[in-house]
């Protein structure tokens, strides 16, 4: 639970999701930042103005999903590693892009285990993309089974 161990539950996530027509039409950002903390770099990281300006530095980020292109620049700028980009428009699979700060890096097409927000393996996944990102935080895009884009938040390499 958020207040106990920082793990957002389905009801927390549902509150921040964009309307159906956005989800069906393009990749979009999911900002899993639910606590008022003094932090604002996501707003200025956004090239399209989709992450709205902060009135107070402790505000929780707000997104105008119509402006979001799912570019993912904010993923590696977020100090809390709390931003993800989800693409539910693909046939037969979903894409989830997440921040990654470990070495060695996984390779494209590598088979991995998708982990949920509690670190439990829930599906097989494939590394679709490894981007350099900004500020030394890499952005990894995983191909996951349809319906898993909002469940997978990390991955485990298969030894």
């Amino acid at each position: 639970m958020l207040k106990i161990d920082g793990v957002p539950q389905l009801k927390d996530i549902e509150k921040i999701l964009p309307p159906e027509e956005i989800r069906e039409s393009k990749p979009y950002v999911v900002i899993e930042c639910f606590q008022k903390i003094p932090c604002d770099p996501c707003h200025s990281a956004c090239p399209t103005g989709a992450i709205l300006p902060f009135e107070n530095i402790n505000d929780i980020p707000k997104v105008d999903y119509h402006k979001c292109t799912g570019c993912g620049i904010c993923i590696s700028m977020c100090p809390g590693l709390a931003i993800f980009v989800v693409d539910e428009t693909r046939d037969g699979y979903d894409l989830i892009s997440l921040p990654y700060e470990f070495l060695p890096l996984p390779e494209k097409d590598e088979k991995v285990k998708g982990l949920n927000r509690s670190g439990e393996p829930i599906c097989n996944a494939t590394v679709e993309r490894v981007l350099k990102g900004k500020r030394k935080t890499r952005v990894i895009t995983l191909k996951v089974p349809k319906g898993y884009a909002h469940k997978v938040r990390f991955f485990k390499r298969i030894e």
Partner: protein
Amino acid sequence: MNTEFLVIGGGPAGLSAGLKAAKYGVKVLIVDDGISLGGQLIKQTHKFFGSINQFASIRGIEIADKLIEQGKQNQNIRMMERTTVVGYYDDGSFIATRDDKSYVINAQRVLVATGAAERVVPFRNNDLPGVYGAGAVQTLMNLYGVLPGENVLMIGAGNIGLIVSYQLLQAGSKMVGVAEATSRCGGYWVHAAKLKRIGIPIWTNTTIVEALGDNKVRGARLAKVDKNFSPISGSEFEVACDTICLAVGLNPLVDLLWQAGCEMAYIPELGGDIPLRNEDMETTRRGFYVAGDAAAIEEATSAMLEGELVGLAVANSLGYKVPDYNKQRGRIISQLKELRGAEISQHIRKGIEKLKQTKNYA
């Protein structure tokens, strides 16, 4: 040695104060007992929170590099690392030691920005090799490149415990788990979420009762605690680990301020005994300032702002021309206020309120 402004402690608060004062012409000497200036910043490999107008999204180590470089470029600043200020004398002088030499330093203004000391928790065998403070773990790992252990148990789920756990994973250790005596993580939710999605357990309402092992740590016995933080009998469980890392809070390091006769108050919300001070961070002793964790256990962004505030006040009080003094001062004070505005900073606001109600508040 004589200087106009002696800064004791070259962490985020001290460096910011020195840079600000030197900008207006003040001759500054910054001394620090570490092998490099930068304080805790040089161990901080994570990106900072806060405002993009300050240092948000930049890693602590990179902030330290920037500030130290600015200090080197400024002819008004002299920086001495590996230098420990060991005492203050009634005639107004400080004694500092470096290698086998000692120095007498006289200054017109002084900033004590000495940071904090780590707390420990009592448990059986807590002197076994393999029991570390989180600061030592960070120093070994991030400064010296030495992995302190392979299987680590973290005690404390405040920001330090959560962040150091994540850094240990990055360095290649396995995290056995994080034990937290209260009912919830005290650190930012996002830091806890980062560990959880990797699969690291966080045990709340749990404390360590014993380190296991004869000559070194081989494990730990943990127990659930009741409302009074007493272990509940029958709830004990054991984990295997070779390292126990304690991240159970900090106390302001204020010995020099006690010695200088500054008036102190015990304010638990701010970390314990802290010096009374006014809005410019000047203590009850004229010309003696405090900033950063020595003033209150907070974080580096507020330490840097407090440092800047002191630098401004010092330059102004020494008669150097600070053209937009009131405007700058007002801006920093309002930035501090905004930074402390959220629910998570409630204790800081409460502590500052208590401080203002203390007798002799300047």
